């Protein structure tokens, strides 16, 4: 971890270096060693805005994407300030952003590996000069296909569905409460549990998402914390305070409750 002597200097980032707003955001977060599961949204938003200052003027390709992200950050910041009703199971306003950042971080990692693979492959050369050979015209080959085959294929052609204008919203059948209970149950026995363990037996993606969100929510309430030693390691959920691991907690997911000190 390199030291950051001057916060102000650090903030002068060359926007051109970044592949896009997520790249920049990830840079700001990782550079300062803040918890990605508990992003100080206000600070990060300010830094992001500062970093993209003058962007539009420079006429950088994709400036709109940075501005879009800026708007999103400001929206999240505002949502964080709003008091949330007791028992509200709406997700942490930051949750989706965290998911995107983690996924983007992975993609960045993978693309780094692709880059390495590309260079390694580029050290090998194939036979370059290959004398041209006379190839028989494909039309000289006897075609065995019969009309019956063509017709059979014709019968299977189906007109694409007309585009629908309305948007389908699937009902959320998995509740966060349910998943929070699952996590707390698991933490009764042990001080920590692997995230993947909590997913075993559930096939649908929504379970993964909900468990993750419940984890985030409980982290926010300081009931537990999530740790990942590095991007490619298993995600671990740790119990923060034994006394607080209580079934009652699940019932009152109250923003005020968890914030102590």
């Amino acid at each position, binding site marked *: 971890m390199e030291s950051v002597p001057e916060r102000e200097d650090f903030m002068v980032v060359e926007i051109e270096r970044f592949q896009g707003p997520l790249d920049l955001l990830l840079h700001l977060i990782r550079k300062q060693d803040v918890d990605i599961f508990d992003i100080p949204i206000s600070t990060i938003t300010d830094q992001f805005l500062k970093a993209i200052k003058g962007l539009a003027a420079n006429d950088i390709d994709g400036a709109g994407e940075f501005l879009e992200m800026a708007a999103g950050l400001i929206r999240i910041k505002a949502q964080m300030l709003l008091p949330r009703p007791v028992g509200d199971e709406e997700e942490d306003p930051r949750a989706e952003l965290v998911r995107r950042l983690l996924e983007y971080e992975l993609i960045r990692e993978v693309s780094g590996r692709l880059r390495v693979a590309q260079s390694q492959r580029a050290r090998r050369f194939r036979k370059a000069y290959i004398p041209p*050979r006379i190839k028989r015209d494909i039309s000289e080959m006897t075609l065995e*296909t019969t009309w019956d085959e063509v017709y*059979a294929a014709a019968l299977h052609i189906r007109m694409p569905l007309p585009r629908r204008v309305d948007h389908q919203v699937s009902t959320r059948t998995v509740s966060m409460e349910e998943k929070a209970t699952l996590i707390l149950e698991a933490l009764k026995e042990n001080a920590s549990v692997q995230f993947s363990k909590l997913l075993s037996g559930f096939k649908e993606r929504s379970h993964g998402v909900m468990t993750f969100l419940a984890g985030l929510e409980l982290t926010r309430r300081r009931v537990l914390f999530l740790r990942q030693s590095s991007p490619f390691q298993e995600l671990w959920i740790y119990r923060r305070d034994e006394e607080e691991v209580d079934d009652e907690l699940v019932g009152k997911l109250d923003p005020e409750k968890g914030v102590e000190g």
Partner: protein
Amino acid sequence: MNVYQIVEAVLFASDAPLTAHEIARADEGLDEDQVESALVFLRAEYDDSSRSFELVQVAEGYQILTRPEFASYLERFDNVPRPARLSGPALETLAIIAYRQPIGRLEIEYIRGVGASGVIRTLQDRHLIDVVARSEGLGRPLLYGTTRQFLEHFGFRSLEDLPRPEELPIVLRERTPLGPEDDLAEEDDAVGGEVAEKSTGQLKVATETLEQSSQEAEEPHR
């Protein structure tokens, strides 16, 4: 690293014959004489170990080439085991073209839901279809239709003979338009059209695609 190995690597990877002088550029420590000896050594080695390639000297320099006696295998490799039958995608595409001709690639792709340039090329190579016109639409895309060989091969006197029973999917039985304009505009994505410049970009992209695919036709398939 032996000199003969370096020489071999250079000849293998070069797309043109190289003189001993040129090969010597591979390494500061190399001179032409060393390269010449390495070439003699390599030539003998390829002969002694019955390699199917040999070191050949042509006017412009040296090259590694397969020996002439393998030509028949290479020719067979190039020509023989092509499927004498059309693949599923090719059959489907042919059916669409037969019933909806003249039809452009984008429309075919719209109906099939996947790219069609490779299959169209195959069918063209087989002389079952051909470009029959050019659309008046944006980019004036090429329109395909069936050929006389198509009729001959399947034993139809004319296109009127194509069966059109009730069981045929409506998209083939009736030449109904494929839907609102934007459906085909959306299709522009197939060739990478930008959302922002959808209307103007389309023309440009379509033309590029045509040029590109005619270039591709000369390249071998993977």
